[in-house]
């Protein structure tokens, strides 16, 4: 019997070696689509970075900008005109050469109001984007935008093929996407897997990679495995070669495992929080919000759910992020149950028989919307238990990621759970606190003209000090109003099979593998 088992095992190993040129990556959720302008999901970006290229690329240090599809660029002195010179050897997956027209089309589609891109603001206040000749693009702004090049490295700015968009119509990014990336669209089976095949013609990878193209591996399979435990086991048993979606509780064990290497990068700016819809009954009261924030025990969450592998968050963005307002460090709301109870008592909320507070016959019951999946399920349940201790009944309604985005665009919840990547304070604040971004992504309904002015000032500042001041003021405002419950700052963590060459985690939009050009098996 034992011999038989050994034989099957050996058989298995040879079977794996035979198809060694495929890399399987397991992850938790799928995206609702892969149209770069109509989704903001990390799950989409992960694939889009591999399917397509951007004019400029971001280094692992999250600071240096490398040439991408543009071999060089110039910026005018007033900071409003960017001129990009394109490479002339770039082709799409279908073999068609890429030209300036395609670039202009892609960027224009991004900001076109018809596209309804939730992230068009990231392109800055565009005056005009034009093709000067086949290999020159001019990007003209109404006002300077100091973050433009960083934004142009994001997956929203990948170059797509106009003919492809026209041919596929509503199926663009659902049944295909003709990109210029190191990998090409093979097949997407929603909620099961996404198959990418190598683009053999690829030779224009950015300089941050040792390998400029084509990619080492023939095929990449992004496989959806919702259960974190199964993902971890898949890595240990070699069914997944690399993934950033391993559970925290297994990191210690994975480090011990001879077949697995773990890489951690703290340069990631990715924060988990819950936000209040401050126009809703009950949570429109700052005292109630403050009490809830005070009731949540971030240290315990970081320790119990994440085994101390994440940084508990009391600030809305990482305190190490660009333009964080250090003056707020001492004023952040830290866990304090007594204070939370005192605030609620003071506001007239009386604890009832079932432990839940009431006031004038109304129960302190608030509804939270969020994502299904192990991460949010546990986070929500932990917060639910924490706030219950001060007499708040948090009702959870969790939705599959594919419809949660739609649900979160409604006005029917009191609290929502979300996590987001950012480069700087401005990046985060412009996304969440602009009044024009209501109801989504400004799901808080934070509607404050002064905030809008400050954000404008920060965004167009040419002087970094002015920018930091403006954003610092917005940070103070929103922290004082207790519109979020910050939960934790997530590091980038990648678990990989030791059969693979060491992977350097990237932090761009939380997509740890970025373009995947250096992914290869050791001999």
């Amino acid at each position: 019997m034992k011999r038989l088992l050994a034989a099957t095992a050996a058989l298995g190993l040879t079977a794996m070696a035979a198809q060694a040129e495929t890399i399987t990556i397991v992850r938790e959720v799928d995206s609702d689509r892969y149209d770069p302008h109509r989704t903001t999901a990390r799950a989409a970006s992960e694939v889009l970075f591999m399917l397509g290229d951007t004019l400029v690329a971001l280094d692992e240090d999250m600071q240096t900008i490398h040439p991408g599809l543009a071999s060089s660029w110039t910026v005018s002195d007033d900071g409003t005109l960017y001129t990009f010179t394109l490479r002339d050897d770039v082709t799409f997956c279908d073999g068609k050469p890429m030209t300036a027209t395609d670039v202009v089309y892609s960027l224009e589609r991004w900001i076109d109001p018809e596209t309804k891109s939730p992230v068009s603001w990231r392109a800055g206040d565009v005056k005009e984007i034009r093709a000067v000749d086949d290999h020159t693009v001019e990007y003209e702004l109404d006002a300077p935008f100091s973050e433009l090049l960083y934004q142009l490295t994001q997956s929203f700015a990948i170059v797509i093929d106009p003919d492809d968009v026209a041919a596929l119509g509503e199926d663009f990014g659902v049944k295909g996407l003709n990109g210029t990336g190191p990998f090409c669209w093979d097949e997407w089976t929603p909620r099961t897997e996404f198959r990418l095949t190598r683009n053999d013609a690829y030779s224009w990878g950015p300089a941050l990679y040792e390998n400029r193209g084509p990619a080492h591996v023939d095929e990449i399979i992004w496989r959806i495995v919702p259960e974190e435990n199964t993902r971890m086991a898949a890595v240990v048993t070699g069914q997944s070669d690399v993934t950033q979606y391993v559970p925290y509780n297994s990191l210690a064990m994975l480090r011990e495992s001879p077949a697995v290497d773990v890489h951690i990068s703290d340069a990631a700016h990715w924060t988990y929080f819950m936000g209040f819809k401050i126009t809703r009954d009950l949570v429109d009261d700052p005292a109630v919000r403050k009490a809830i924030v005070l009731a949540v025990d971030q240290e315990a969450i970081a320790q119990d759910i994440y085994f101390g592998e994440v940084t508990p968050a009391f600030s809305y963005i990482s305190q190490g992020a660009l333009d964080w307002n250090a003056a707020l460090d001492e004023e952040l709301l830290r866990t304090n149950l007594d204070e939370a109870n005192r605030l609620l008592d003071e506001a007239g909320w009386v604890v009832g028989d079932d432990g839940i507070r009431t006031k004038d016959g109304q129960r302190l019951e608030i509804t939270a919307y969020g994502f299904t999946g192990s991460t949010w399920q546990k986070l929500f349940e932990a917060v639910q238990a924490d706030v219950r201790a001060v007499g708040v009944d948090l009702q959870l309604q969790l939705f599959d990621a594919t419809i949660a985005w739609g649900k979160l665009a409604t006005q029917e919840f009191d609290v929502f759970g979300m996590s987001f990547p950012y480069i700087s304070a401005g990046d985060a604040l412009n996304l969440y606190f602009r009044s024009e971004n209501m109801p989504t992504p400004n799901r808080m309904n934070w509607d404050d003209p002064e905030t809008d002015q400050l954000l404008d000032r920060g965004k167009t500042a040419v002087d970094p000090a002015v920018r930091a001041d403006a954003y610092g003021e917005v940070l103070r405002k929103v922290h004082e109003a207790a519109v979020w419950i910050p939960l934790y700052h997530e590091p980038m963590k990648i678990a990989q099979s030791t059969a693979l060459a060491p992977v350097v985690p990237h932090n761009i939009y939380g997509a740890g593998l970025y373009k995947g050009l250096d992914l290869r098996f050791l001999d």
Partner: protein
Amino acid sequence: MASTAPLEVTTAPRRRGPMLRLFRRKGALVAAILLAASALGAVFAPLVAPFDPFATAGRPLLPPFWAEGADAQFVLGTDGQGRDILSRLLYGARLTLSIGLLSVGIGGAFGMAIGLLSAFFQKADPYLMRLVDVLLSFPAILLGLAVAAIFGPGALAIVVALSVATIPDVARVTRSAAVVVMGQDYIESGRAIGLSNGTLIVRYLALNCISTVFVFLTLRFGQVILIGAALSFLGLGARPPTAELGMMAAQGRDFLFFAPHVATVPSLAIFVIVLSANVLGDALRDVLDPRLRT
């Protein structure tokens, strides 16, 4: 045709070794004790449970008493959020058993009514039996999926689905038992002394079939609990923070490889409950109604 097969009635005498008989009795006794213990634990969960099943009580993922590093306070260990598993188990059994009892009760009542009416009013018989055949074409899991799709996941959805799934089989069993009773003299005599149809059905027919139906429902109980737990495991049943055994097992999956007890303890609990119900049902059948065989 095929659908009548599982309830085949046989009168052939069966020989049985004395050992088996003894084993059966002993097994039934143990099963009854286990089942009663689970039921008592579930009913008195608020009194018995050492901790709040919904609140963090200790360090997360503490192992149960038989494993190394256990904390005597938490006999069965703690789950991923540091909640006491024993307490959650008691509350979970409460919901799991309620779902089973309710479904079997509701489905049994409707099924029995259909079966009795079908046997008593022979004109209605073909129609009622066709209805039963139609219901029989929906396996319980499919009903569960459909109901969860329509009403959204929840414990209520499961009860509805499992009740409906119970109706057709009970109706068949009741009918075949009732038809035998109908052929006996006392229904005729009852009619002769001018008893109303209602009295006849309730006093005579129902009373004479009740033990058969009861035995069948006992046998069915285990299956119903299994399907309910499976639906909850899939996320189509009870919602957090309530505790339900199947759901607890699903949550335990996250720790399967280094804290397997979080998943195995509730799974084992389901196994024990269902096994007890099945063993007890088998024994009851042998004693009360040996004609019922599957």
